[in-house]
């Protein structure tokens, strides 16, 4: 299995789209977590809080982007990892090498899980550097969040990414390609969940339904880690104003989504003809 995983890591590592998505993610995370708020603070200190830009607020400041654009980028990574194989016809090349289909899928899962881990770590590394730079520029004291909070932030970020990436992989397998899968994924993330969330306050039955949506649970998870609900409710197209659920429920629901998406994707991949 180690050699197959190394093959998948080679595929992801040499693929430009992996690095393009990572670059976009890093740029967006840095811009919206630190650059824009710091520019606002320097222009008008009453419009932004310096405390949120310092190392102590690292987890809460960074996590707001995970359920929003981070999730969509993870979805695209999931789609590209397996959807392109249909377009290039390489799935049949892999399926005739020896390992079973589930082993091939398992190797892809491990490789994408590792890549998502790298995405999370890159965001945190940029957050550390940015918050230290701002603290130095403003002459503020440097205090770090607890190790437990840092761990929860890293794990929570990875879990949000994993749920979206697993959805991307499932959509790619269902549609046997990338274009339709990406379209459906983005439509679901922004339009369907967004509309239901917006209507949830007016129709009570939707309120309960939205509590089980991927985005609602992602936002609920980051809210537990220090992201202000008011802050994510005021973020343009990615805004989310509730309903929020508890951290344990959010973790369980996201883990359950990831597991269900992975199991259904594996079942389809194993069962269907590859032409």
């Amino acid at each position, binding site marked *: 299995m180690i050699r197959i995983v190394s093959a998948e890591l080679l595929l992801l590592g040499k693929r430009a789209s992996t690095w393009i998505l990572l670059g976009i993610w890093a740029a967006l995370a840095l811009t919206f977590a630190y650059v824009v708020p710091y520019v606002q603070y320097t222009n008008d200190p009453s419009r932004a809080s310096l405390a949120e830009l310092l190392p102590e607020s690292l987890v809460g400041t960074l996590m707001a982007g995970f359920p929003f654009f981070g999730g969509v980028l993870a979805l695209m990574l999931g789609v590209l990892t397996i959807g392109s194989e249909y377009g290039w016809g390489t799935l049949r090349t892999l*399926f005739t090498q020896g390992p079973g289909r589930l082993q091939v899928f398992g190797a892809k899962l491990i490789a994408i899980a590792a890549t998502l881990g790298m995405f999370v770590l890159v965001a945190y590394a940029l957050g550390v550097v940015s918050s230290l730079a701002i603290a130095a520029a403003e002459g503020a004291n440097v205090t770090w969040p607890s190790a437990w909070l840092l761990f929860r932030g890293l794990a929570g970020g990875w879990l949000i990414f994993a749920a979206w990436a697993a959805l991307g992989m499932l959509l790619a397998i269902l549609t046997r390609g990338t274009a339709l899968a990406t379209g459906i994924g983005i439509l679901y993330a922004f339009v369907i969940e967004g509309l239901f969330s917006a209507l949830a306050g007016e129709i009570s039955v939707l309120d309960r339904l939205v509590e089980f949506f991927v985005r609602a649970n992602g936002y609920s998870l980051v809210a537990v880690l220090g992201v202000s609900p008011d802050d994510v409710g005021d973020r343009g197209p990615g805004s989310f104003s509730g309903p929020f659920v508890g951290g344990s429920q959010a973790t369980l629901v996201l883990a359950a989504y990831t597991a269900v998406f992975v199991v259904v994707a594996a079942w389809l991949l194993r069962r269907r003809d590859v032409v």
Partner: protein
Amino acid sequence: MTENTTQLVVETHELGKRYGDRIQAVDGLSLNVRRGEVYGFLGPNGAGKTTTLRMLLGLIRPTTGSALVLGAKPGTSRALARLGSLIETPTFYPYLSGRDNLRVLARYARVPESRIATVLADVDLAGRAGDRFRTYSLGMKQRLGIAAALLKDPELLILDEPTNGMDPAGMAEMRPFIRSLGRGDRTVLLSSHLMGEVEQVCDRVGVISQGSLVGEGTVDELRGREGLWLRAEPLGEAQRLLADFRGVEEVERDDDGLRIAAEPAAAVEINRALVEAGIAVSELRPERPSLEKVFLELTNAEEEA
């Protein structure tokens, strides 16, 4: 499955694949490929060749019948570990070099990466191995596909139209290479619609039409015995005379002449008899139906049926 199974590398029994209610891609195909032979799988486009090969690789599931590949169920690790394949156009990662593509496959196939240089040299692609696959010509892609199929040093090679897209020089070069791959214990199952390729390369040939096997044997067996071909005037009179001629088994019209089932040595007697009967003979020569003619007869007969 009547032959000694240890000698059979591929066995199919009444293998069938149906798509929906209307398309019967493969229909009751029973095929036996023996160890060490180069078996030609000949058929027109859309006859079911690629579908059959995909079933042998486990990529698609048959709707009826069964198959064994190297004694194992198609698509199992036991079968796949010992076979190499190239199905239709070679499919690789366009952003990777030829060498990196083989590196990925070597890791998947649990083959030492030292094999990569060997197979690249075998297909004469070492000089361009560092270039991205997307920059390759169709012929180079085909050669990389064969290199990938050889990575595992397989007991069975399944090649689907391996010279597709190659220029005449490349095809001429590739045919003896494919022939050489079948030397020793290795078995090659070669699908093609090119008669010349099959005649030059294959020990035995199976002809498939509309999903069914319509003929099987060595090229010589399929082409049948050598006979005679006659052009004479008046042709009808010549046909009547030869119908009862000693040593002639059968006479049939063939375009603007007669095909005579007789030993070529009987040509002298036949010519004398025709001339003595006042029939003008303009051409009398030994003749053997080409594989192409046999192929067309077999496949047309199936279509008419």
